[in-house]
């Protein structure tokens, strides 16, 4: 009969599919006793191309697959040598000379030379690459000509021999070396990029402690030890397997089942973990160099009036907010986070004072009828924060509406003038210097870029300009702290909190440390025997 036949065919298909599947594309097999670190991730890895990646997940892997001239420590933000043995900075901070190691090799076999670093940075500056790291290297002499296509190379990057590279800057920049620690400045082999083009992300060739073994989009990424890594004895792991597209709750379940070795702690479980001593001692945490804030557009009503901005600062109950986030934050008194060099511990900021808020709003003539719209990232935590803010503002007569939106369109919108009046955002330091917060977020020249509050105070601008070339750290930080005090008084932000990152690991995982600014480095992590 015809019907049973159709069913039989269907059944056959199902059986074949099911039998042929081993959890979706074979997982790589490791020999018994191999030290494999197993992780999980909510999102897919966006890219492994150093010129393209500008997010935590991409950087996590890029810093393991590639080498930069310098890098940060495991748990600190001090500069250490990586591909460079030593470097020298001219007193006026315009000439930077690096001496490379002779034993760095790409996984394709050939040695890494100064030409490779120059190629990497020119690739980032090339408009065709459309790299977001372009702005960090624009100040190199000859970069504008190169970008405009008038020169074949950037004249300010000198490679007198294969083991020396010298950078000449058009203006003094005391933190230029930090820019070279970003994955944008990783050495990449020109021939591999020429071969793979835009698919270089899927076939990365680097000189880092690991190399890519397998990457199935949305499912799994596997990196294995690079046997030719120039530091003997590292990495201590044989491989790292990262499951992709795993939600926070699922990651936790897998951690409990022993299927993964390190996990973030989901909101719902946090209280339980902290109350259980055997679990609590397996957690690590670190205050990040980040600040979460509410940005108020100083050029759009009602936030043109400083009293309204200050009122909002007094109206928000930050402790309640941190409680809703399970205590994973510290109240922010100002712009700069505690872990940032140059942080001002003496800043007191705004206390929770709804009465004062109401007075200020009345003084500004807007005690009723204020109905601002908060633009925020459409993710669960942000929406919880948003609803907590709605509760607080309702108590002072402000009717807040929420406008959840995806990251890409949000980033685009905040850069247009007169578009976004009120937004919820965070800023994380890219390098350990106050300029990375204050100049980037509050100077007039950054209107339409990162100064999404369109804030302008000529005194602040003058201080920022004065501080930029100063190499004496004490003087430098003092100037920036002065600027910060003015900014806090002007209140273009509601200063919310500095997030604290928490992670839990299995008892057999060692030396997994959190860095305040960068994703964790994995080459020194080791596993004791288990199972």
């Amino acid at each position, binding site marked *: 009969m015809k019907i049973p036949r159709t069913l039989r065919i269907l059944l056959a298909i199902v059986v074949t599919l099911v039998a042929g599947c081993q959890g979706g594309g074979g997982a790589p097999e490791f020999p018994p006793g191999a030290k494999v670190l197993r992780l999980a991730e909510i999102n897919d890895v966006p890219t492994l191309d150093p010129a393209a990646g500008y997010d935590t997940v991409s950087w996590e892997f890029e810093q393991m697959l590639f080498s930069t001239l310098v890098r940060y420590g495991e748990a600190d933000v001090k500069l250490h040598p990586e591909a460079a043995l030593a470097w020298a900075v001219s007193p006026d901070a315009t000439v930077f000379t690096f001496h490379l190691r002779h034993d760095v090799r790409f996984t394709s076999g050939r040695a890494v030379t100064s030409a490779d670093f120059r190629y990497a940075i020119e690739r980032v500056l090339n408009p065709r690459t459309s790299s977001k790291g372009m702005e960090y290297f624009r100040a190199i002499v000859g970069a504008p000509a190169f970008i405009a296509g008038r020169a074949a190379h950037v004249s300010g990057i000198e490679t007198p021999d294969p083991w020396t590279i010298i950078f000449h800057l058009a203006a003094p920049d005391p933190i230029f070396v930090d820019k070279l620690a970003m994955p944008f400045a990783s050495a990449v082999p020109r021939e591999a990029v020429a071969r793979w083009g835009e698919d270089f992300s899927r076939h990365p060739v680097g000189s880092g402690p690991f190399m890519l073994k397998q990457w199935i989009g949305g499912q799994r990424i596997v990196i294995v030890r690079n046997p030719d890594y120039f530091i003997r004895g590292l990495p201590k792991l044989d491989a790292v397997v990262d499951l992709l597209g795993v939600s926070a709750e699922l990651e936790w379940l897998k951690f409990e089942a022993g299927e993964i070795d390190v996990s973030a702690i989901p909101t719902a479980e946090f209280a339980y973990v902290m109350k259980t001593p055997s679990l609590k001692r397996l957690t690590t945490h670190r205050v990040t160099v980040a600040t979460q804030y509410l940005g108020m557009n100083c050029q759009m009503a009602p936030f043109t009036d400083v009293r309204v901005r200050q009122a909002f600062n007094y109206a928000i109950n930050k402790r309640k907010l941190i409680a809703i986030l399970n205590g994973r934050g510290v109240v922010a008194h100002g712009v700069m986070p505690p872990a940032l060099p140059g942080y001002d511990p003496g800043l007191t900021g705004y206390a929770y004072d709804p009465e004062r808020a109401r007075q200020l709003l009345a003084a500004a003539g807007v005690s009723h009828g204020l109905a601002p719209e908060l633009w925020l990232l459409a993710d*669960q935590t942000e929406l*919880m924060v948003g609803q907590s803010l709605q509760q607080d503002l309702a108590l002072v007569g402000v009717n807040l509406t929420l406008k959840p939106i995806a990251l890409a369109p949000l980033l685009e919108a905040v850069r247009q003038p007169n578009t976004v009046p009120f937004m919820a955002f965070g800023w994380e330091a890219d390098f350990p210097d106050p300029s990375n917060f204050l100049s980037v977020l509050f100077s007039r020249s950054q209107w339409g870029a990162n100064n999404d509050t369109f804030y302008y105070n000529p005194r602040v601008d003058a201080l920022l300009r004065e501080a930029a070339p100063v190499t004496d750290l004490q003087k430098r930080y003092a100037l920036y702290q002065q600027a910060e005090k003015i900014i806090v008084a002007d209140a273009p932000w509601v200063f919310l909190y500095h997030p604290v990152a928490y992670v839990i690991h299995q008892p057999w995982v060692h030396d997994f440390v959190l860095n305040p600014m960068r994703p964790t480095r994995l080459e020194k992590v080791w596993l004791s025997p288990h199972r």
Partner: protein
Amino acid sequence: MKRRRFNLMELIGALMVAVLIAVALLAPLIAPHDPTRAVAPTFGNPGPPSAAFPLGTDELGRDVLSRIIYGARISLTVGLAAVAVTLAIGVTIGLSSGFFGGAIDFLLMRFTDVMLTLPGLLLAMALVTVLRPSLLTILLVIGLVSWTQVARVVRAETLSLSQRDFVVAARALGAPSRRLIVRHLLPNVMPIIIVMAALGTSGTLLLDAGLSFLGLGVPPPTPSWGRMIEEATIYFRTAPWLATFPGLAIFYAVLSFNLLGYGYLRRRRQQ
């Protein structure tokens, strides 16, 4: 005996719908608390059902029972308004197609075919994302992606009715089209339209709940059942009741319209 049973389904459905509408209308009177204010200090740690809060409190300290009661307002508004849009479009197209036939029928049906191949949920998601997610947008979008079924059914009914003697006769006598449609066809197509309205509402309710679950529904803090479930998923092990109750509410609402529509259909079939 048989007829009584089918009427029973319709009756129960109607009763359930009536209760739902009553709850939605009387929300400010029956809800014990304001659904958006924090009334319990359970920040970050949802509270279990208790005497003071029969359905518990959520991670922002709000009373779940009040939120479910107020949620009925949004669900019903979107569900019924969207079905109105669906019917407006679907009945117009179906009637025109079935009555006029020829080129009009061909074009309208091809257009319907194209709409049928477009994935409804994806389209709704894309449209809501592009336009502002507000009450009006959502009910329009849901209505826009749900009319194809109605159009086809109404067309089939219209076609079969158009062959009947009384219509043929009226046409031969030179009756104007509009009169024919309104006076003769519409009343006869009405039972099908009523069934589609009821079953359609259950569909729009589900679609709205789905969109809210994906974060594309009416924005917070207005309580929406779908979004309540989405917010509760992270607490699925420590506070499972948070996800259970809004789901039961959706189930109740959808079931009530299904019972009503299906019961009515059965009763008409018997006659």
